[in-house]
Each structure stands twice: as C-alpha cells, then as structure tokens.
C-alpha cells in the first residue's frame, strides 16, 4: 500500500512543506508508492501564478509540476480548504485532484506522515 505525505503549512513562510516534498520524492525514487495531500493553509502550494523570485526563493510550482515525472502517484487537495482560500478549479495547478480529507481517506494508505 501507498504512503500519504501531508502538507498543511503554507509555502515560503517555512521550510516544512519543502521538506515534506523531499520525503515524497525520496520515496518515489526508491519505487515506493506515494501521494501528497494538501490541506489547511497547505492548499496555497497549489495556486497558479506564484512568483517567489520577489522574495528570492525557488518556485514550489516547478517542484510540483515535476512530481508525476518523479513518480508521485497523486496530488490531492482538500476541497473545503481550497474554498476557504478562494482557490477555484481553474486557479489550481494542473494534475491536482480535489478530495474530501476525512477518516476514510487515511484507510487508503498504509502510512501517513507530516514533515514536521
């Protein structure tokens, strides 16, 4: 069964999300099935049009675009949290699946982890 890595912290303000992404890429590199769940303020990772050159950080958009190539199975986003942050479907990065993050979701995975 697959691992679920959860990102619930917003991008750029802290490094926890980047380190969660590294965990997911690392699992994929070892051919371990892995998906990413964005929830809470973490859904802001998925907004189109980020320009973090203004604060001299690298765009997480590019990292996420590479996720399928590296073998990450799915990018999941909690629908309620997307609504909360005004993220309509057309503002979401390509390849994101909107789900309802409830207790049922966890049963699809053998492991679930946060980066911090």
């Amino acid at each position, binding site marked *: 069964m697959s691992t679920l890595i959860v990102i*619930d912290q917003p991008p750029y303000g802290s490094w926890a999300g980047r380190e969660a992404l590294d965990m997911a890429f690392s699992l994929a590199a070892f051919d371990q099935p892995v998906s990413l769940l964005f*929830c*809470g*303020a973490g859904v802001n990772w998925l907004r189109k049009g980020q320009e973090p050159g203004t604060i001299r950080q690298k765009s997480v958009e590019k990292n996420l675009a590479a996720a399928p190539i590296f073998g990450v199975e799915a990018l999941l986003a909690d629908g309620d949290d997307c609504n909360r942050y005004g993220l309509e479907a057309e503002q979401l990065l390509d390849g994101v699946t909107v789900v309802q*993050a*409830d*207790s*049922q*979701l*966890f*049963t699809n*995975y*053998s*492991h*679930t*982890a*946060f980066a911090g």
Partner: protein
Amino acid sequence: MTEIQTLHILNKSPEHPRFARCLSMAGPEDGILLIENGVLGLGAASARASGKLMVLAPDMAARGVNGGAESAEIIDYERMVELTTRAQQVISW
C-alpha cells in the same frame, strides 16, 4: 484488549489547526493519544473525539491538567509503546 485501527498521536494545543483536524479525521475505531501540549486539549477532545481517547500521564502532570480526564485512559510510555504495536497505523500530528 481493544484493537485500534489508527493511533493518532496529537502533541498540539487546541489552538493549533492540526488539533481540530486530527479530531475530525479520526474514525470511531481509531485511538487518539494526547501528548505534550496536546494534553491541554483534554476537555475539548473529550467532548468531540469519536475514537478512543488516551492521554500521557507525565505530560498531564507537568502541566497540572486533569479536567476531562474521566473520559480518557491515562497511560504511561510503556502503554504508548504497546499501543503503537497494536495499531495498524500510527500518525503523528
């Protein structure tokens, strides 16, 4: 001995967004173990947790917390270890 589907280890105070999310995502066959700052949410969790509620004794004593303890199992580290071996999955929030 009760089997637990998923053991949720919750170390955040009830003000932290992960506290409410953990409670809402824990199912009725799950266990929720409050440790560290999480013990401050004992009252809140007693009222809302759908799974089995547990709380780590040393962290409770450190903080002088006991309100809401009647609805939770008070455990030590030995029991915490045992719970992690009994549960199908362990999630640290």
